[in-house]
Structures are given as C-alpha cells and as structure tokens.
C-alpha cells in the first residue's frame, strides 16, 4: 500500500513485530522521531523508550532497550536487544529493581555505570507501562 510502511522489530531471540503500519514513533538517543511511509533512508541509534506503531486507528506500544533503527525502501527495522509489549512489563519487578538500584551505593566505576543504566532502563520501562 502506498502510504504504509513495513515495520519489523527484531531481537536476538525472535522477531517481535512484522507488520504494515501507517506511522511509527521511535525513541532515538536524542529524542523521539516519527516516521511515515516513503521516509528517506536512514540509520539511527535508539535510546531506551517507547516505540509506537499506528495502524488501523490503533496504537501499539512497545518498550525497546537501545539498539538501532534502519529505514530503507519503505521497510523500517528496529534492531534491539530487548523488546517488550507494554502490557508484558512486570511493573512490580521493575519497581523493586529500581528501588534496589537506587538504594545501592556502588564503589567501582563499572558498578556505577551499571547502576545508572538500571535506573534509566527501569524509569523508561515504568513510563511506558504507566501510559494506558
């Protein structure tokens, strides 16, 4: 279809989404970007956040954890380490992980980075889960 774009979300474990959509919003490292059909070819780096697929008057929301987005020839590929449907997020578990991370006071640089990463991921996940 002329004004639709094929959207594919892949993780190393499976292909989460593969369908034709009207528009997609992806979280780039420096802010969200909306992509419609016939978008120019591009490769972007993703941050942690929400991918929104708009099709048939509905919006499907996914949480992705970093990775890349590639647009070429009306195919949009989201290549990410982890993709979760908004409804799949276990809020309780994420909240406890966030609490644990915030309560910890790491010493080494490595651990500090891991702590910051966990906090950022958890917050982004909760944000996606909170929206209904």
């Amino acid at each position, binding site marked *: 279809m002329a004004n639709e774009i094929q959207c594919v979300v892949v993780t*190393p474990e499976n292909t989460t989404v593969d369908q034709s959509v009207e528009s997609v919003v992806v979280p*780039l490292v420096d802010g969200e970007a909306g992509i419609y059909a016939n978008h*120019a070819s591009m*490769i*972007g780096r993703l941050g942690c956040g929400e991918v929104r697929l708009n099709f048939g008057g509905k919006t499907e929301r996914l949480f992705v954890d970093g*990775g890349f987005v*590639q647009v070429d020839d009306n195919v949009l*590929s989201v290549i990410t*380490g982890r993709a979760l449907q908004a409804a799949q997020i276990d809020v309780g578990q994420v909240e406890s992980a966030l609490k644990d991370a915030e309560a910890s006071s790491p010493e080494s640089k490595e651990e500090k980075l891991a702590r910051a990463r966990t906090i950022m991921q958890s917050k982004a996940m909760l944000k996606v889960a909170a929206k209904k």
Partner: protein
Amino acid sequence: MANARALDNRRKSVRNIKKITRTMELIATARFKQAMDRATAATGYTDRITQVVNDLATSGLEVSHPLLEKRDQTKTATLLVLTSNRGLCGGYNGNILRAALDRKTQLEGEAETLDLQVSGKRGIAGLKFRGIEAAKTFTQFEDKPAFDDVCEVANHFLDAFISGSIDRLDVAYTRFISVSKQEAVIETLLPLDSIGTGESDTSNTQAPAKKESVYEFVPSPSSILEEVVPTSFRVKLFKCFLDSAVSEQIARMVAMKSATENASEMIKQLSMEYNRARQSQITGEIMEIIGGVEALEG
C-alpha cells in the same frame, strides 16, 4: 553353555536400557528442533546488524574502535570454553576440551597469564579430572541460552577488555555447520577482527544490493559505530552459545541413536544365545528322562 534364566534377565535389562536411550533420542530430537528455531530466529537479527555494518562501511566512514585494535602485547588472555551441563552426548565435550587444552598450552606460551573460564558442568568436571582449575565457571546456560544472560557475560568481557585487564578473548565452542557436521573450533572474539557477524556468505549476498548507500545517520555515523561494535560482539558471543546448544542436542541425538541400535543388536544376539541354551536344556532333560526309562526297563 550359559544359564538360560541368566541370559533372559540380561536381555530384559538391555531392553530397558534400549527404552531409555530411545526416549532420550526423541527428547534430544525435540530439543534440537527448538534450539534450531532459536538459532534461525537469531539470524534475522545478525543479518540486519551485518547490513547496518555494511552500510556504515559503504558510507566511507573510517572504521576504528578500541575493540577492533590489536594489542601489541598480550599480557592477559582469556579462554572461554563452552561445554554442556549434561553428559551422554558422545564425543561432544571431549572434542571441545581437547581443542581447548591445545589452545591453552599455546596461549600460555604467548601470554603472561591465562584466565580460563568454563561454562557447563561437564567441562568443569573434565578439567578438574585433568587437574586444571577454572578461574570462573558458569552453569546457568542450559539448552536455551537467553540473550540477557549472555549479554551480562559479554558486558563483563567488554569492560575488562576496554579497561585493559584482558588483552585477548578466545572462545572454544562447537560450531554448527550442518545437521550432519559440527566441529569444535576456537575463535578469537576480542579484539574483533571484523565487525560483521562472521558469516561471510550473508554479507556477500547483501553487499551488492547496497552499493549506493544514501543513508542519513542519526545522530552521526561515529555514534552508531560506537554502539554497533559492542553489539556485534555480544551477538557473536550469543551465536557461539546458540551454536553450542544446537550442536549439543545433535551430538546427543546421534549418540543415543547409536546406543539404541547397539541395544537392538545386543538383544538379537542374546535372544539367539538364550534360545540355544533353552534348547540344550530341554534336550538334556529329555535325555535324562530317556536314560531313566531305559534304566527302569533294563
């Protein structure tokens, strides 16, 4: 001639063993299919990463990254050996250990210190038997390695490599070539020799179509490169784990198949011996009776 009853008992126990090996074969077949599906699912990801890498390369960007730089001196080398948690899979673990030990002696000559890490109970036990202690062991990887778990291990290696505490990482695993062929190989994953996923055939087929790259890079090609290199390493390591899992199931399937066949053969052999023994026992009894009758008549 052996006792007919003893032969019959042996035949029964062989029959039981056959049932077990046959079931194990079926289980391995089912698991192999699952593992294979996972490996195929992962290729969707690796192909796309390869494509991004190719696009980056065609955009004329200077490809340089700390993970790609070869160190002049290898002070600390790490050897990661991927074995299975369970046995009864033929020469699977033996082959990897043999390959790994060869590389170990070689690395010990080159590097000042060697850090040996083993995944899988069989490998840990096998090395202990040879009197080698592993510095770090993993047993959490079963036949379905999760990307998150592998990622954790991968990030650990990445941090160690960048901070300079290791200079080289070799991984010994069983590469899956086809259903009938797997081999124990050792690959050097750090420093990365190329940022492709190591499958030259997929990159070759995709390269011609992508000659004219007109990509817009957001935010910048170098920023994407910065992310794509570690990702590429993680995926490579994940692929090693997946290949190992698939190969393990195939090895078990083959081993159990031959065990089942062997048991069938043995049952046949034992049946023949049993029949013979039974026959001679009956003949003996008849002879005794005839002898008794003759004695009475005489």
